[in-house]
């Protein structure tokens, strides 16, 4: 172990030697050690200012008393105050008047379409045209009603959603519950296909008509024309929630159906729900200028 001074570099050696090779003990550049000291200084300031050190029962809060939860609660609070001012118009008039107001439509339609895509599109499709099991919201046919306040109630409370004020609609399981036989169900399938303008088995039609009047028109209206706004769809148009082919129709009548539309009351603000109700209304109705 011999520490030597190297004249060329002006540095000492480490004192290690391997087969005549010696190693210079060049110190780390100053700027690096300084930045290292600086980070230590920074962390000390941080400990003083922000929540940092835990101890047995609590932790140091820091002079600023910062809390990320408090921060986000405050931000949300102030932004909702701002929003409240700008949405006051949404509650200044009854919803059916807002729905017919073209200025309101211009103002809110775009932001409502984003809301719809985020929350409703997964089921009803971003274009509102629905998909299997999820109804079209754009067509003439309504399960409940196309009055803006009724649409708003549907969104607030949902359908079969478990909410206390839910809309309730269930298609009876005629086969499973042994109300109708297999044969009767195939007669009804033929009848439903006939009223919706599809090819069908003429031979089954007569008894199908009778069975429909007895079992189905109470919910689906005479001849399946719907319009009762009690959750049962029109059966004479060519839009199907579940499907209009013989197999699906027979499944529907055998097993029954109970579609669920979630309640949004606890997920979205009142204003957002109102915007969505207006949006759904606007997509299916032409306004007069």
């Amino acid at each position: 172990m011999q520490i030597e001074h190297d004249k060329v570099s002006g540095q000492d050696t480490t004192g290690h030697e391997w087969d005549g090779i010696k190693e210079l003990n060049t110190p780390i550049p100053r700027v690096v050690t300084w930045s290292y000291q600086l980070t230590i200084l920074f962390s000390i300031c941080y400990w003083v200012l922000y929540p940092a050190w835990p101890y047995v029962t609590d932790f140091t809060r820091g002079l600023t008393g910062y809390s990320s939860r408090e921060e986000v609660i405050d931000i949300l609070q102030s932004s909702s105050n701002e929003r409240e001012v700008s949405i006051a118009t949404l509650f200044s008039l009854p919803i059916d008047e807002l729905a017919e107001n073209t200025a309101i439509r211009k103002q809110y339609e775009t932001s409502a379409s984003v809301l719809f895509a985020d929350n409703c599109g997964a089921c009803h499709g971003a274009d509102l045209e629905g998909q299997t099991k999820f109804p079209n919201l754009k067509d003439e046919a309504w399960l409940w009603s196309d009055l803006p306040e009724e649409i708003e109630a549907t969104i607030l409370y949902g359908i079969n959603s478990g909410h206390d004020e839910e809309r309730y609609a269930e298609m009876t399981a005629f086969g499973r519950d042994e109300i109708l036989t297999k044969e009767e169900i195939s007669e009804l399938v033929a009848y439903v296909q006939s009223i919706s303008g599809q090819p069908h088995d003429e031979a089954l039609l007569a008894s199908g008509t009778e069975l429909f009047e007895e079992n189905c028109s109470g919910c689906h209206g005479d001849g399946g024309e719907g319009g009762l706004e009690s959750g049962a769809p029109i059966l004479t148009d060519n839009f199907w929630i579940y499907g209009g082919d013989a197999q699906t129709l027979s499944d529907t009548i055998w097993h029954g159906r109970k579609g669920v539309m979630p309640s949004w009351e606890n997920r979205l603000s009142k204003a957002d729900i109102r915007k969505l109700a207006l949006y759904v209304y606007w997509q299916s109705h032409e306004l007069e200028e």
Partner: protein
Amino acid sequence: MSTAHQKLERHSLKFTIMILLVASLGGLFEIAPLFTIDNTVEKVEGMRVYTPLELAGRDIYVREGCYACHSQMIRTLKSDVDRYGSFSLAAESMYDHPFQWGSKRTGPDLARIGGKYSDDWHVAHLKAPREVVKGSVMPGYGFLADTNLDTDKMRAALVAQSRVGVPYGEEHIENAIKDTAAQADPEAEFEDEIIERYGEGINIRDFDGNRDRVSEMDALVAYLQMLGTLVEVDALKKEELVR
């Protein structure tokens, strides 16, 4: 260079002990206080243990690696809260072993997915994500609907959870297997029993749309439908939330 350190470096045993000592400081300060500080886990109402069916669903969630694409941690950021709802509380994962906070979001956060969609939607989406959501990159999990849930192992699963501190009692464990199947059966005769054991507001129904069997799909959907629904975070006062 200080000679004291040089001396230490030359003493392998002393040096090893010093390294261990310094390295354990991090753990000492980060982990140890969590056992004694009692305000890390908020005192909130509504938390309950998972029902056996939900726990089975959670096991499937872990098995299938859903956490690789989905977090369950709504951060204290406005953008997160706007999109997913109130930020997650520590209390909400107090019965999670292991927790599913995740660190990557290829898909959306699922911490509050419960009740956002219907069972039908979840089943359709899990079977074929692209049929319901255009352009989704989520893989399909249709086989879950065709796989019977192994209910027999739920007793052992509850025992394992209780060993790591989840307060399952004798009665929960005794009835685990029966409760697993009963929660997915709309005609269950033990409905009241489940509610008595696990509390009000348990979803008891056929989740996968097939009444003839209790499938893994039933379990997974039961789990998804309760996520984030136990604690009413919006109803808590700011003072109760701020730490």
